[in-house]
């Protein structure tokens, strides 16, 4: 039975439980003289039945769906004779996909070992057993739950309180999901990173000056060993982010100041949404713009000036990333500038200072912590930005401070290492997770500091 059909059946059962629960409550109320003698409204009795019917069944269903494939895979592999048992992770993945292909009929059985064909048969068998068992267990649970709730309906039962308690727990679980996500991120990058640092010493990774993650394909191959020194990536990321911030911070800040302090309301009502459109442009569009328009333009200009500019120069990626960050910086600065109390502004103007003097000498110092927080947030965005650099920055890990040369960044390398066709636990893929860990730690620290500053600042004037 398909999972979709099972869900439909379950939905029908839940609706039935709701209707029957309501009916039962009315039935119980009738001899007592109407529903005002019930402790809760009939609706809550109905909801209670529906919850009893749905919750246990759905919990089992989700757990089953999450774990059944993994369990079946282990059982199938265990059923293989010892000489076919895979020796390492790579062989294991290969074998699993082979068995899967035979089982789905994509690979004829006479192409493979008899044992593999048997395993494929077993896979199919186990899968159908699992699907059947799941359907039976889920439906029985739903029926038992619904019946239990139906039987227990009585006039004195606090149905509303029970329903509300369940809802509260559900709400809380939704809020806790944020914590679960963070924990998931930390563990998923941390585990793979620890495995990576088992193969490559952490000092080599953090301080090595050479990045060329090509592993030898065969043991006897003469080719490179693979070097995982991430310093060129850190340097490249910093270079591009610095260019982006040099563009975005002055432009964004000055736009915010102009819009908040000088602009006519008509200009404001036009320019502000226009800048917001810039914020809504997907990063892949910026990447396209950088790679196909800005980078060739910069190269041509450089050539006419007699400079040698790489076709994937850091400057192009940085400039476009700066454009992307303008609305971000400007809206954050706008928030902090308008949060400076009116009285400070008026006092300064009243003493005869010009507007620009007021801004430079009074508003700006007062808003500085908030602006610094905003710049930190923008920097963390620049470091974590992926698509612009994937499309417009290079792949070669050059260690240079020249913005006209091609550099590569952490995010570019993560994407390149993970979008190829390699197995899950080679040093190359693990390196991507180690880079992800670095990225996560850096941006996390920056965000924590930035949010702390912004919050502190906000409290100051409230």
């Amino acid at each position, binding site marked *: 039975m398909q999972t979709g059909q099972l869900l439909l059946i379950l939905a029908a059962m839940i609706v039935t439980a709701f209707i029957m629960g309501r009916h039962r409550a009315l039935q119980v109320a009738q001899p007592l003289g109407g529903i005002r003698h019930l402790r809760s409204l009939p609706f809550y009795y109905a909801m209670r039945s529906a919850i009893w019917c749905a919750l246990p069944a759905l919990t089992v269903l989700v757990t089953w769906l999450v774990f059944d494939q993994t369990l079946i*895979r282990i059982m199938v592999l265990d059923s293989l004779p010892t000489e076919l048992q895979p020796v390492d992770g790579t062989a294991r993945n290969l074998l699993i996909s082979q068995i899967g292909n035979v089982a789905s009929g994509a690979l004829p059985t006479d192409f493979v070992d008899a044992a593999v064909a048997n395993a494929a048969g077993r896979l199919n068998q186990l899968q159908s057993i699992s699907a059947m068992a799941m359907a039976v267990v889920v439906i029985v649970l739903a029926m038992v739950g619904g019946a239990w709730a139906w039987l227990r309906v009585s006039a004195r039962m606090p149905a509303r309180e029970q329903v509300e308690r369940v809802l509260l727990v559900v709400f809380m679980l939704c809020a806790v999901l944020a914590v679960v996500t963070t924990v998931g991120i930390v563990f998923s990058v941390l585990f793979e990173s620890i495995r990576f640092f088992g193969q490559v010493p952490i000092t080599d990774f953090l301080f090595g000056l050479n990045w060329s993650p090509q592993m030898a394909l065969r043991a006897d191959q003469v080719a490179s060993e693979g070097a995982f020194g991430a310093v060129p990536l850190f340097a490249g990321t910093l270079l591009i982010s610095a260019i982006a911030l040099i563009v975005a911070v002055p432009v964004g800040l000055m736009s915010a100041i102009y819009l908040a302090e000088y602009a006519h309301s008509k200009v404001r009502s036009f320019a502000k949404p226009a800048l917001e459109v810039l914020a809504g442009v997907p990063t892949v569009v910026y990447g396209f713009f950088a790679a196909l328009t800005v980078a060739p333009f910069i190269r041509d200009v450089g050539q006419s000036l007699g400079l040698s500019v790489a076709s994937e120069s850091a400057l192009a990626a940085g400039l476009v990333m700066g454009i992307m960050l303008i609305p971000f910086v400007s809206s954050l600065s706008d928030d902090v500038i308008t949060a400076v109390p009116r009285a400070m502004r008026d006092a300064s103007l009243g003493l005869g200072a010009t507007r620009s003097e007021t801004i430079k000498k009074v508003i700006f110092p007062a808003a500085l912590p908030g602006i610094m927080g905003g710049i930190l947030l923008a920097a963390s965005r620049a470091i974590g930005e992926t698509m612009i650099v994937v499309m417009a920055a290079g792949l070669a890990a050059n260690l240079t401070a020249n913005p006209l040369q091609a550099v590569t960044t952490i995010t570019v390398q993560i994407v390149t290492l993970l979008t190829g066709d390699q197995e899950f636990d080679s040093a190359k893929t693990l390196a991507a997770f180690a880079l992800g860990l670095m990225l996560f730690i850096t941006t996390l620290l920056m965000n924590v500091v930035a949010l702390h500053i912004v919050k502190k600042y906000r409290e100051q004037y409230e």
Partner: protein
Amino acid sequence: MSVTTEQVRKTLARRYRAEKRFKAYGICAISIGLLALLLLFTDIIGKGYRAFYEYSVALQITFDPESLEIDDPRDLEQLQYGNYEAVVREALQARFPGVEGREDRRALAALVSTAAGYRLREMLENSPELLGQTRTLWLQLNDDADMFLKSSEAKRKTARLSDQQQTWMLELEQSDEVRAGFNHSLFTRGDSREPEQAGILGAILGSFFTMLVTLALSFPIGVAAAVYLEEFAPKNRFTDFIEVNINNLAAVPSIIFGLLGLAVFIGLFGMPRSVPLVGGLVLTLMTLPTIIISSRAAIKAVPPSIRQAAMGLGASKMQVVLQFVLPLALPGMLTGGIIGMAQALGETAPLLMIGMVAFIVELPAGAMDAATVLPVQVFLWASSPEQSFVTMTSAAIMVLMTFLITMNTMAVVMRKRLERRW
């Protein structure tokens, strides 16, 4: 006149100049931002508008049973293996009788798209009586020939057609045997290696299913979390911890969510790669903080007097929240939801991590079919060398931006229409 006044008067001109300068910096900054926006849009529209139409050529096609190697058009097997290219080739040779030699003939045949063969087969399948007859048909041109016709005079010299092919195309153009029409395949097909046969429908469907999963999960979960944090959560360390987590997740780079999806959903749970379901799950986790933060703001905006009035009438805390606060906060929440969805629709990086970059020709039929999404399609086409794919990429961007701008406008309009000021 006192010394101070004297001093002030002396410096006044300088101060006013500084004031003017400062104002000019501001105007400069705004102009840079607006100029960038203008450049971006004109660049993309200028590159992309040509992908919305395509050229086709009029040819006298004879459904000759011998060339087609088909004697019974009702036999599906024969239809499948029919030699349709031969018919197109013959029609072209009939149009240009002077062309001799294998090389030249091949160059001539290359002008018409291979999609023409599929079209002939479809026609024959629908009306078998066509066999043996001659019809004038408008057949799709190959992308290089198409680009040649779309290019301006100056750029035609550098087109990817040989000189001979260019003369043929010019002859066809002068005798009005080519015409431009709406590019249907752009909106009715999936990806393809041939630019003239590639379309964005597959990517749009993929985006649709991904967004469906994201919406179905992130909106209810986000609202529930916001309700809990705003109305029920006790003021303690754990609640603070949840809040810190949410604020940080909002600023975590999106690619990290992709790593999470790869390690947990695909690695640990064994879900398939490249499917909208996993993409939707990853984007749900990514958009949740946005939705939670905006929903909390909407709940906060509901005045306490509403809550007090409902409680005074005997409603329980949960009843107050579900029956009074939520309906009043809903417009604000929906606005936040739409903005979150727009963010998810434009997102690319995490989807690259979970394998939604595969080359997929078939149109996805559900959330469990391998698919790609619009922004990823843009990324894939942007890295193709063909000139036609550059226009296609720009066209895909225009479609994507249309969706995004519509969504954001909707959010703004909703905020204006439905928001209640207390």
